[in-house]
């Protein structure tokens, strides 16, 4: 094929680009496809399975063949359609799925094997005698498949997301969509008009058809200018509305800078994900031409007739010197007239029908057309470029382009995505949108109105006068009988009519089975130009009307959209918010190694020079037991529970009793889920008669709040209680160790820290300098300890001042590791024990089991919840003086350490500086009756195991004397 550019467009800006390493010139506004055609390039890629040479088939997003890889620096954008890719200076693109080159592709040998590579062949072979055989074949099959190559380097582009609200969303800016936009704009409604192309106007772009006394191109430009004058209209070109979701919500991707040179695009958003929400929706998505099936219909140079027209009208590019047209309908004559108006000659028209409409006859007359009636192309001849076509009368016509029209398929993807069943229409031999269950209307070609006057009037511009135009007059012949050559139904996936026949023969009758067995319609184009023809072939095979063959449901996206765009840029550091405490900077300044705890970032250890994590936590934990330490506990969940019924509410929510907690005291509580399993634990403080401050674990903060809200809102609306999260409002620290009282006594005023005035579990207000603080005498570490809370904005100052005050006592900041050590030594439970499967008794919290009724109590009594074989919380001590690994399993004998019956597992482990031993908490089957027994903590993942003794979980100071001093 030897395409060329019409010389009329002399003012165009030249653009230089590279394709397969060779430099070409195009002009501003070209797609890669139009530019390649203008340069006479016919061979663009290789097909998926047989690696047959392929060219340019269409002029839009329905393209099955011409997918290329775009190279920007070391980043690749595979499977990009040459037919939609706008060229820019410096564009570099290459063919894909071919090696060493698109011209000479080694895998073209697959074509010779095509008798074997039929539909479903891989299900019948490559099995061998064991699964290893398939693994061997698979490696090679994977390499051969896959189309474009993707980058391993991170995408450096930027993406963003935008919510767009409007009164009327119009999808498709062809004549129908533009008319509708003008009509709606005049009513003052907020209108969004989106179109996937760079240029709006659809079929009217470049058209010479007369509208309201001027040519179509001029008219549509004028209307677009008019639309731009409305403040209430937003035009979104280069925007693919890819999906229709519930409540008239649409997903769309706007390509903001893909068409710009690398330097122009620098710093700009590449693509924007739009979530459009509209009261009314007008779908004016147009129609796609489909081909007719004949032998070797995949040869480069065989293209849609309308594509030939588009290249001429939109880009001034003529795809070939000798153009033959092949049709079963009249739309082709309109394209011929457009070509004729630009003096582009048509060599011949092969028309399946025997007569001409008046319109076609006039075109024939005007352009002196040679028309073959009752004729069909049976085969295309050529390899990497079309050389000729053979007609059913035996005649051979030399040509380099064959434009084919098998009629038009309304683009009803968006309608169908909602589940609306398409309806087959005999007059257009295709499907129309079915009954919509959402609030939208379809207008124009997507509802089968193919003539311009209907498009305009459905858009609300009935008064605009349009020059005569043809009706469709389609003859329902789509599949030409031929004995030679392959008839491809799905060009991209190399699915032939014979594959469909084979699928039918093997019983894959349902359309879904057909699709899955042959992979028809599952390629990147989702069978936009193939599906209807496939149904025609299947209906012929099954001897059923097409309506009974069925259709598959369209799935979003309408056209492929980038994963980067869909992420809206919310990835990497923007993936989730980071929650930092007010003391964050202090921790960093003091050598803290930070760790994620849910969304929070907390100090894990404060490393001194040369220390490992283990060294550091042992030092920190020992310092707490010896003198005093401080730890940031801001991340604990905090909920205010307010109202006269608050005690009653807490009494129902917690397993233990709450009615008699005095003001100024705190209490530890355990709450269950309704199914009787432990949900969360923490202390709750009675600040005033009707005001409590509940603390939750960091992990469950949000869930507990929702749980409480549900109970108050839904179950007990009569309770006069309100809950509100105050997690963000308070900064908190725990100060623990024998000298904690002395530090606080020195630093705080307006408070008596003596044991008598400030007993265990008391909560009091105090001042730290000018900072108002709440002090609660609570102990997670088992030491004399206090929690000190202040409004968040004082958090840093509070921490720093207490740290300064503690200098005389060598106060040691400690992190989550030492926090863990201290609580494990005390047998206090935390996340690994609160695993959502444990009961109050499992966790040895039976003392907290109240006599009254509480949430979860009724189901906590089920057989399985009180089964004696349940896992119970115990302590473990290493008998081999080595670390017990977290995640170890418990087995009864040394013989079972690699393969055996699990008796439970280790939940939390530490080295205990206080005991000088390696200890752990564990959940062990019937464990409380195994105290004193030796079992094995095994870690088959590293082939390690050790003997451990089961002990009570309270390792250190079991009677709690240290915290009561």
């Amino acid at each position, binding site marked *: 094929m030897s395409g060329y550019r019409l010389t009329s467009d002399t003012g165009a800006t030249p653009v230089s680009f590279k394709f397969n390493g060779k430099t070409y010139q195009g002009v501003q506004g070209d797609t890669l496809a139009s530019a390649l055609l203008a340069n006479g390039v016919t061979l663009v890629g290789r097909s998926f399975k047989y690696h047959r040479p392929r060219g340019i088939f269409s002029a839009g997003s329905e393209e099955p063949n011409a997918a290329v890889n775009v190279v920007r620096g070391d980043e690749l954008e595979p499977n990009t359609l040459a037919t939609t890719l706008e060229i820019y200076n410096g564009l570099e693109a290459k063919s894909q799925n071919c090696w060493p080159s698109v011209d000479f592709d080694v895998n073209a040998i697959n074509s010779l094997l095509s008798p074997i590579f039929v539909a479903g062949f891989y299900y*019948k072979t490559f099995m061998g005698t064991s699964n290893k055989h398939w693994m061997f074949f698979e490696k090679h099959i994977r390499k051969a498949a896959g*189309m474009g190559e993707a980058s*391993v380097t991170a995408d450096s582009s930027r993406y963003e997301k935008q919510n767009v609200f409007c009164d009327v969303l119009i999808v498709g800016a062809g004549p129908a969509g533009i008319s509708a936009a003008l009509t709606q704009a005049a009513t003052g409604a907020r209108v969004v008009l989106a179109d996937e192309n760079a240029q709006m106007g659809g079929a009217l772009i470049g058209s010479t058809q007369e509208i309201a006394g001027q040519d179509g191109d001029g008219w549509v430009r004028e209307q677009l200018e008019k639309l731009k004058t409305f403040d209430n209209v937003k035009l979104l070109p280069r925007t693919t509305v890819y999906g229709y*979701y519930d409540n008239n919500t649409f997903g769309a991707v706007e390509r903001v800078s893909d068409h710009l040179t690398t330097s122009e695009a620098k710093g700009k958003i590449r693509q924007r994900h739009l979530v459009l929400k509209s009261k009314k929706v007008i779908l004016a998505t147009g129609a796609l031409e489909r081909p007719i099936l004949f032998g070797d219909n995949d040869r480069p140079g065989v293209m849609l007739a309308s594509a030939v027209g588009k290249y001429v009208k939109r880009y001034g590019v003529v795809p070939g010197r000798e153009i033959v047209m092949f049709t079963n309908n009249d739309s082709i004559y309109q394209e011929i007239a457009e070509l004729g108006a630009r003096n582009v000659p048509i060599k011949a028209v092969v028309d399946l029908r025997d007569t001409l409409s008046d319109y076609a006859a006039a075109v024939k007359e005007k352009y002196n057309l040679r028309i073959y009636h009752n004729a069909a192309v049976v085969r295309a001849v050529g390899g990497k470029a079309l050389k000729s076509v053979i007609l059913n009368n035996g005649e051979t016509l030399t040509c380099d382009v064959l434009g084919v029209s098998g009629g038009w398929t309304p683009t009803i993807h968006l309608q169908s995505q909602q589940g609306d069943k398409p309806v087959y229409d005999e007059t257009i031999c295709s499907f129309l949108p079915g009954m919509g269950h959402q609030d939208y209307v379809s207008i124009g070609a997507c509802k089968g109105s193919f003539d311009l006057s209907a498009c305009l009037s459905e858009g609300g511009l009935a008064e605009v006068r349009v020059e005569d135009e043809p009706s469709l007059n389609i003859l329902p012949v789509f599949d030409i009988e031929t004995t030679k050559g392959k008839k491809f139904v799905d060009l991209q996936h190399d699915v032939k009519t014979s594959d469909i026949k084979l699928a039918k023969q093997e*019983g894959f009758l349902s359309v879904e089975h057909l699709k899955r067995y042959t992979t028809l319609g599952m390629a990147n184009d989702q069978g936009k130009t193939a599906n209807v023809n496939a149904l025609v072939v299947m209906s012929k095979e099954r001897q059923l009307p097409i309506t009974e063959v069925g259709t598959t449901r369209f*799935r979003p996206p309408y056209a492929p959209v980038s994963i980067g765009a869909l992420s809206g840029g919310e990835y990497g550091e923007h993936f989730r918010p980071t929650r930092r405490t007010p003391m964050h900077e202090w921790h960093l300044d003091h050598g803290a190694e930070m760790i994620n705890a849910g969304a929070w970032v907390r100090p894990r250890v404060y490393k001194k020079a040369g220390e490992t994590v283990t060294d550091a936590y042992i030092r920190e934990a020992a310092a707490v037991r010896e003198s005093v330490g401080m730890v940031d506990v801001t991340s604990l969940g905090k909920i205010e529970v307010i109202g006269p019924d608050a005690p009653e509410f807490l009494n129902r929510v917690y397993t233990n009793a709450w009615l008699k907690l005095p003001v100024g005291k705190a209490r530890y509580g355990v709450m269950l889920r309704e199914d009787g399993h432990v949900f969360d634990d923490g202390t709750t403080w009675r600040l005033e008669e009707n005001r409590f401050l509940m603390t939750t674990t960091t992990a469950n903060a949000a869930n507990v709040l929702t749980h409480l809200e549900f109970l108050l809102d839904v179950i007990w609306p009569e309770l006069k209680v309100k809950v509100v999260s105050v997690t963000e409002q308070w900064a908190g620290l725990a100060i623990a160790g024998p000298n904690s009282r002395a530090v606080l006594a020195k630093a705080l005023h307006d408070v008596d820290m003596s044991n008598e005035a400030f007993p265990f579990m008391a909560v009091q207000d105090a001042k730290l300098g000018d900072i108002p603080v709440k002090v609660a005498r609570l102990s997670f570490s088992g030491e004399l300890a206090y929690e000190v809370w202040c409004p968040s904005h004082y958090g840093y100052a509070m921490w720093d001042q207490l740290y300064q005050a503690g200098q005389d006592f060598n106060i040691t900041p400690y992190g989550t590791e030492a926090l863990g050590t201290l609580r494990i030594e005390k047998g206090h439970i935390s996340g690994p024990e609160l695993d959502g499967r444990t009961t109050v008794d499992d966790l040895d919290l039976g003392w907290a089991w109240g006599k009254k009724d509480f949430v979860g109590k009724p189901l906590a009594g*089920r057989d399985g919840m009180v089964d004696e074989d349940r896992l119970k919380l115990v302590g473990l001590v290493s008998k081999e003086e080595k670390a017990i690994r*977290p995640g170890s399993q418990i087995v009864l004998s040394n013989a079972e350490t690699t393969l055996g019956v699990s008796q439970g597992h280790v939940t939390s482990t530490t080295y205990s500086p206080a005991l000088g031993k390696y200890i752990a908490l564990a959940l062990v089957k019937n464990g409380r009756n195994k105290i004193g027994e030796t079992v094995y903590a095994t870690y*088959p993942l590293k082939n390690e195991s050790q003997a451990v003794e089961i002990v009570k979980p309270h390792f250190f100071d079991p009677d709690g004397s240290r915290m009561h001093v």
Partner: protein
Amino acid sequence: MSRYSIFNLVGNALSGHKNWKEAWRSPEPKPSYDIVIVGGGGHGLATAYYLAKEHGLTNIAVIEKGWIGGGNMGRNTTIVRSNYMLPENTHFYEWGMKLWETMSQDLNYNVMFSQRGVINLAHTPGQMDAFARRGNAMRLAGVDAELLDRDEIARRCPGLDMSPNARFPIVGGMCQPRGGTARHDAVAWGYARGADLRGVDIIENCEVTGFKIDGGKVVGVETSRGDILAKKVGVAVAGHTSQVMQMAGIERLPIESHLLQAFVSEPVKPLIDTVVTFGAGHLYISQSNKGGLVFGGDMDGYNSFAQRGNIPVIEDVASCAMTMFPNLGKIRLLRHWGGIMDMSMDGTPIISKTPVENLFLNGGWCYGGFKATPASGWCFAHTIATGEPHELNAGFTLDRFEKGYTIDEKGVGPVPRLH
């Protein structure tokens, strides 16, 4: 000869593929069968296959409302693994894994079971510990598992964001090397063909409209193609379990139907050679043999029978995918769709007798149905044939909720959307 092989394929190629027989027959339903299986998905077909193969029962019909394998069997992300922690699950799924390893040969149908490994990423030391707990439980039960350090993760998953400054840096992971993917449709077709060859009638386009129950005993089903008597009936219709069981008088079940979306990208040359799951959000990703990246994430989170989801999950899934693999930005999403999950209240399936005698239930598969296909069919066949569960599914009873023996792998309690 209906056996598939390369020789048979070449022979057929030489004769123009004229001699291939249908993969399974399309018989008219008989008036009665020994066993009727309601639901021609993977589980129903596998059940019929194992009833015939393991128990010598062949007077069986599988009754399917639409076309076989058209529900979740053809909508899942094709991941196969047995990396479960709780003993009931570990043993059941591992039995399934063993069946997977010989499935292609057993069925004489290439289901393309690709043991490319399943890697779970860990982002905190605590998460690593949780994986170790699971991995050790697996190893102790004879299941393969290995811990991977950062370097090994980076080596196996090029493109992964290994930056120590990532929002949730990867600290390591766990791998089940024998896990992987399989060609989902082929599994349904292979079981269908295998069952059919053993005499099972597979009846498509036949909707069960009611059960014939006599004195608390099921004696047959009413269908859109007439009544069919049966001595025993097994129901395997995940997604619509509640609706079908209601026809048998079982009004309520511990099941909600939820929507799970799945995603596939345009095909690219081999990029991800294993299955990877994200640990800081919910995402699993692998690459199909065709080259498409197949991925999924959270459920939409509300009861649904619509088989199509909404944008928030699409955005979240894309965010998770990009956070894991920032090189995926320029790869395009080709298609996404939804399936209806039978979400049980503890996240664990039900393979069980029911209060109606001779009526058996297989459902509640949550996310786990595809990988369970062989073990589910095998155990369900045993349960139907013998009237009692096998040791492997003894814990999967319907009455475990009432009795307090729930099997809650995630520990989130009776909230289906969280399982």
